[in-house]
Structures are given as structure tokens and as C-alpha cells.
């Protein structure tokens, strides 16, 4: 009896992950959560979770197997990248020329904002007033004298 219990305990200790894997196989949702971030090169622009081809079905089966083995999402994605290249990822990994994808859009946005702010400042400035025209000089001696006397009386 005691020997039987010991055998069972040793068995559970040696094969715990196997027991867990059999009891909790990965669900379709868990598989698709990873599959939607992957693109099979055969079916360009169709995410793996909705791709109907045999190749994509094989890929989803592979994801299921890796999940059952306890692999993480990052490990599974890395496996597919090593096998089939960067292009299987929905978003390119940030290295080399791929940085352009991440840097150019925000840089273009900032340049646009700077141009817009500059334009708005220019619109807010008060319009340039025309210079006051100087009083015409009075050439007529009579009128000059009238003006002079008016100023003296004022």
C-alpha cells in the first residue's frame, strides 16, 4: 500500500507539466491572441487568426503545440521570426531601417505642428499701420501767416 502511494507521488512529481498540459489544452482564443499578430508570407495582408489556408492552419497548430509546452507569446513569435523572417510580424521589430517606421511619422507630426504654430502666430500679429502722412507744407505766404497767427492766439 505504502509502496503504491509512493509510486503515485513520484509519478506526479516527475510528470506534473504533462498532467497540466492534458487537463488544460490551449483554447482557440489563446491561440488566436498570438495568431492575430502574425502574418504568413503565403497569404500577405491576412492575419494568421483569420487566414483560411492549409499553411496558416499548420501555423496555428504549431502555436497551440508551443503553448501546450508552456512557451510564452514572445518565445513563440521569436520562433516564427527565426523560421520565416521579420515579415511574419504585424509590426516590424525596431532595428536597422525599421526604425524609420517608428521615427518618421512622429517627426513629420512635430514638423507639422511647428509649421502650424508659426502660421498661427503670424496671423495674430496686428496689421502694419500705414505711416502718418506729414502735413503738407504751406507754400502760400498768406496762408502761412494765417496759420502762424492762429497758433499765436491759441
Amino acid at each position, binding site marked *: 500500500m505504502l509502496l503504491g502511494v509512493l509510486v503515485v507521488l513520484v509519478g506526479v512529481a516527475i510528470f506534473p507539466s504533462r498532467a497540466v498540459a492534458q487537463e488544460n489544452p490551449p483554447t482557440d482564443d489563446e491561440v488566436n491572441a498570438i495568431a492575430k499578430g502574425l502574418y504568413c508570407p*503565403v497569404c500577405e495582408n491576412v492575419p494568421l487568426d483569420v487566414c483560411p*489556408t492549409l499553411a496558416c492552419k499548420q501555423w496555428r497548430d504549431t502555436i497551440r503545440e508551443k503553448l501546450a509546452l508552456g512557451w510564452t507569446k514572445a518565445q513563440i513569435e521569436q520562433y516564427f521570426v*527565426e523560421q520565416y523572417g521579420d515579415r511574419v510580424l504585424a509590426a516590424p521589430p525596431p532595428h536597422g531601417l525599421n526604425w524609420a517606421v517608428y521615427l518618421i511619422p512622429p517627426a513629420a507630426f512635430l514638423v507639422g505642428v511647428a509649421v502650424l504654430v508659426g502660421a498661427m502666430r503670424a496671423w495674430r500679429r496686428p496689421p502694419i499701420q500705414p505711416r502718418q502722412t506729414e502735413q503738407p507744407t504751406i507754400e502760400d505766404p498768406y496762408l502761412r501767416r494765417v496759420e502762424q497767427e492762429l497758433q499765436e492766439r491759441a
Partner: protein
Amino acid sequence: MLGLLGLVGFGQLRAQQGPVGIGSRAPEFILTTFDGSQVSTADLKGQVVVVNFWASWCKPCEQEARELELAYQTYKDQGVAFLGVDYVDIEREALAYLDRFGISYPNGPDLGTRISQAFRTQGVPETYVIGPDGRIAAVQIGPYPSFEAIAAHIELARGK
């Protein structure tokens, strides 16, 4: 912004170029086979090399699988090398496919799809027959219809 547009344009231009053409120098590559050995096309210079792109999920590939093996058995001792490049596939399925069709020439996965990108393949099956001078002598887009068609390409590459 102009630089990005230039990059996109260059990529589109390259994508529309189509497969490497007859007479052009064949891309060199190293194939790591399913059993772990490595075959370099640089080491096969002076021989005719038949490079076949296939996949286990590819139904048209099955039409030519036995004929390719027959051609390999016919020509393997006559200075003709065969290489199978498994495109976007799962290893277990690929090995089952090779077993099912009794294919014995070196086969391996197209890791990172680098080889198919170098040849600018449009799909599978595609076969490139490289002459002893390292240039593409014949291209078969789609499955070979018969053993005779494969033999004709090999003879063309040998200059007969």
C-alpha cells in the same frame, strides 16, 4: 518623408521584378538540411544544380514530387545536384511529405525565407536549373508536367 517614399518605391519595384531570369547569375546560398548538414551552392560550381521550391501544404507540388525524385536517381551520378528548398512550412509536415513521396535528395527549410527572397520566387512550386557556369539555364514556374520536362531542362543546362 521623401526618403521613406523612395524606400517604398524601391521595395515595390523590386517586388514587381519577378523571379531571377534565364541567363542571370544564380544567387548563392547555403541550405541547412532537415538532418542538420549544410550544402553550399558555392561548392557545387561546375555541376548542374536543380533548385526546387516546395511546401507540404502545396498541392501542385505533389504533382512533380515523384518525377523530381526519379530525375535525381537518374542524374545524381552524372554531375547533377538536386536541392529541395521547403518554403514557409512546418518541419513535421515537411518530413512527412518527403517520406510520403520517397524524396531522398537534400532538402531543408528556407530559414527566414532568405533563399526564396534571393530568387524572388512568386510561389511554389518553382524550379531553377543552374548551369555549370553558375547562371540560370531554365526556370519552371508551377509543377513540372513530366519527367521528360525535367530531363529537358537538365540537358539544356548541360549544353546538350
